[in-house]
């Protein structure tokens, strides 16, 4: 009944309550939207405006070099996406369908790369492949995003009713046929959604490409950065941002379409009902998953090993150097101070993102007009796809218009980080809020609970675990945010990822070891947070993306 009544809203005229709730929702929506306009739309639009100026879009489009850049960007993103999907599928199957010991640990290990700071991932692959390797770029981007595939596809897979597959088997299909003809089509929305998101991340990947590719391999994203910082070619950078924006909007539209289909008529089951012990061909999949897992672990181990390797054998020199500002005074503050800056900024960003994302999720879950929901959803997702560099660059362009107090204030860093993680918060919390049966709220209302108390008594407790998940993931991603932050930090407020990139880009053996040591620290913190969040999630068995 609730399903029916959600889709077919009564169109009566005499209800003031519905007017009141509409006004309430609009008021709630205003806060995140205002933030979005001020700290996202304005900077990005400023970039777009510049892109149409002289030496802008028309100039850049005429250059063969631009199209090479576009080609390379899309090509490496496509390759990395394909790789991530292929590597992610066996892991998704194992985590979703097989009752094997250590699935919780497996999920933690798979998730860690996704929330790792890009700089760490870049350095990890540099430690393995050396500088300037194309294979390293593709592998690193794929490495980063395997978790997206495992979580999005595995999330749906674990809730798919297994009996459809059983029916196919009973009708004479082999396991492989049953998979390709029944399960795979059912997974297609999740696969499409995951692939679109991964492609987006790979195409706008910044830290990884910058650290590994250096000057040799450039994507649109790193080119924007280099043009801004090194060449001071603002119109050119703006034009490239514009180009990238177009690609991003297209990819987001594909992803949104896939998500819509996902929320359609799939028979979902509790995941506890869908796992079975492995048999026969499952062992092959398990072996493949094991191989992927080793591939995911190697770069992490390499970072740790490299942090312990000094010119005179193994040692803790790198860790000792963390209390200093690097060899030759590369940094104005010590690495430890940078780490503290990071924690402070990330904590502020998390609080801000929880408020903004929470409000947006509530509005999205409760709005009954499909059109308004879609519009708001897409708007709130935009920062996820628009390159952090474009946003950071936009801040630089619009900063001059801000009052000087705000322009130089360190609050801008948490603001831009909040912008990056708010979409994530929404994607984690929204599916849970949407899965709450509306009749539970109605039951609470008939028992005397007003709208606010309904929310406190039903929505809040039922989404509590997803809120913790969102806060945990949001925090570690803010901690590792590099692209936009690197535009905004000043030497005294430098964050850890920025400090790491400065250290690695300067000569000196000690700087390199210190950078790896700092990476190890980030790695450990990230892994710990993910492990805690995973424990909470596993117990709750919620339906969510990521």
């Amino acid at each position, binding site marked *: *009944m609730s399903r029916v*009544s959600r889709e*077919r*809203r*009564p*169109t*009566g*005229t*005499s*209800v*003031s*309550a*519905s007017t009141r709730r509409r006004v309430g929702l609009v008021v709630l929506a205003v806060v995140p939207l205002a933030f979005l306009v001020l700290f996202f739309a304005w900077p990005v639009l400023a970039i777009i405006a510049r892109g149409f100026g002289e030496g802008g879009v028309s100039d850049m489009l005429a250059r063969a070099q631009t199209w090479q850049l576009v080609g390379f960007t899309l090509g490496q993103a496509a390759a990395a996406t394909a790789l991530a999907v292929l590597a992610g599928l066996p892991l998704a199957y194992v985590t979703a369908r097989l009752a094997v010991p250590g699935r919780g640990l497996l999920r933690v290990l798979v998730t860690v790369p996704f929330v790792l700071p890009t700089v760490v991932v870049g350095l990890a692959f540099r430690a393995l492949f050396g500088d300037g390797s194309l294979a390293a770029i593709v592998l690193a981007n794929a490495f980063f995003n395997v978790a997206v595939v495992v979580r999005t596809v595995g999330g749906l897979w674990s809730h798919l009713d297994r009996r459809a597959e059983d029916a196919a088997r009973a009708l004479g299909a082999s396991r492989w046929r049953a998979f390709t003809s029944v399960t795979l089509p059912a997974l297609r929305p999740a696969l499409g959604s995951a692939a679109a998101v991964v492609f987006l991340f790979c195409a706008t990947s910044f830290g990884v490409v910058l650290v590994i590719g250096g000057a040799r391999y450039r994507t649109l994203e790193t080119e924007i950065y280099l043009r801004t910082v090194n060449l001071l070619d603002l119109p050119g950078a703006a034009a490239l941002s514009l180009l990238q924006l177009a690609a991003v909007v297209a990819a987001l539209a594909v992803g949104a379409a896939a998500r819509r289909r996902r929320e359609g008529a799939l028979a979902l089951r509790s995941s506890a009902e869908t796992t079975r012990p492995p048999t026969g061909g499952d062992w092959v999949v398990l072996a493949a998953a094991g191989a992927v897992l080793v591939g995911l672990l190697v770069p992490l181990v390499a970072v740790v090993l490299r942090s312990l390797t000094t010119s005179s054998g193994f040692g803790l020199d790198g860790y000792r150097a963390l209390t200093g500002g690097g060899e030759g005074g590369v940094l104005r503050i010590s690495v430890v101070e940078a780490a503290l800056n990071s924690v402070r900024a990330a904590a502020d960003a998390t609080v801000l993102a929880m408020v903004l994302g929470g409000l947006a999720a509530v509005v999205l879950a409760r709005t009954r007009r499909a059109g308004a929901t879609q519009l708001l959803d897409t708007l709130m997702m935009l920062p996820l796809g628009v390159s952090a560099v474009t946003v950071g660059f936009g801040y630089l362009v619009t900063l001059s218009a801000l009052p000087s107090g705000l322009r130089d204030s360190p609050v801008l860093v948490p603001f831009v980080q909040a912008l990056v993680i708010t979409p994530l918060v929404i994607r984690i919390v929204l599916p849970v809020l949407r899965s709450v*049966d509306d*009749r*539970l709220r*109605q*039951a*609470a*209302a*008939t*028992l*005397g*609970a*007003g709208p606010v*108390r*309904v929310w406190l*008594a*039903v929505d809040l*407790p*039922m989404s509590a675990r997803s809120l913790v998940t969102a806060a945990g993931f949001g925090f570690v991603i803010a901690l590792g945010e590099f692209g936009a932050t690197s535009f905004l930090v000043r030497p005294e407020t430098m964050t850890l990822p920025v400090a790491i990139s400065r250290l690695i880009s300067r000569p000196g053996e000690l700087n390199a070891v210190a950078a790896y040591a700092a990476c190890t620290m980030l790695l450990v913190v990230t892994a710990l947070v993910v492990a805690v969040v995973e424990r909470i999630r596993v117990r709750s068995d919620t339906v969510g993306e990521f």
Partner: protein
Amino acid sequence: MTLTVRGLTVRYGEVLAVRSVDLSVPDGGVLALLGPSGCGKSTLLRAVAGLEAVARGRVCWDGVDLAGTPVHRRAFGLVFQDGQLFPHRTVAGNVAFGLRMAGADRAVRDARVAELLELVGLAGYERRRVTQLSGGEQQRVALARALAPRPRLLLLDEPLSALDRELRDQLAVDLARVLTETGTTALVVTHDHDEAFTLADQVAVMSEGQIRQVDGPERVWRRPADERVARFLGCSRLVSATVRDGWAESVLGRVRVPGDVPDGAVRLGLRASAVRVTRADRGGGTDVEASGEVLRRVHQRDHVRLLVRVADVGEVQASTPFAGVPEVGERVRLTLDPDAVAVLAG
């Protein structure tokens, strides 16, 4: 202390789910809204609760229009088909919810929770998690939860439909007892006439968004207002008859009808239980009885249902005890059971 609904219309886009419905439930009365799925009965109930927007008409309590009263201020309890218990609360936490919203203090809440769990047969269940309860237990908790704040009116939306048959029959009796004991005024939506007759003292039969008949259970069963109501209540075939002095004469023989049926033309609604068969080769019976040929037979829980072809009438459903069931193809004699025949205006 009465619910009155006047000219109530609920619209989903172009579709009128509820069309200009009038009804009232007196203090302490239990009214069942009975009808096939999609007839608008649940929508009507939800509109009374304040959960659906009303396009036209009024829902009043004691003559006061509730249009401006939001759901949580109506003090109407609601029980859904599948409980909809709060999964993160214990049994006691669920039952006490309405009392907490009303600001009752802890001692009052605990006492009332214990009292209600006793009433629904779940004494001592306070600390259980609701996810560990069976469907029947969950429905009992849902009932206790709705009754705890002493609602002015209890709304039950298919309260037993999600349960197994055995459980349903038992819970229906328990539910009727609880409603009587507490003197609760209630509106219950159901598609099952047994359930409606067990629970309610008045039955409103709905179809296509309209109420076709409101009467006591027995009258609805025996004197359906029109063909649609008769068919919904199991009369698969209607035959014409003429009443004289309390007897109806039809091609299927003579049958006694209730005394208030006036002389003249009527239609008899035949449900399986109204048509009894005896084997044609056995003695007894009179020459005015009709006969037919058995086409099919289906064994049911406590009788055998037959499909019989009767000349001039067509196929008629009939029932017979297990002992001496006629074979398919056998000729049988038919008699009408006056307690199960429905009488409609001609």
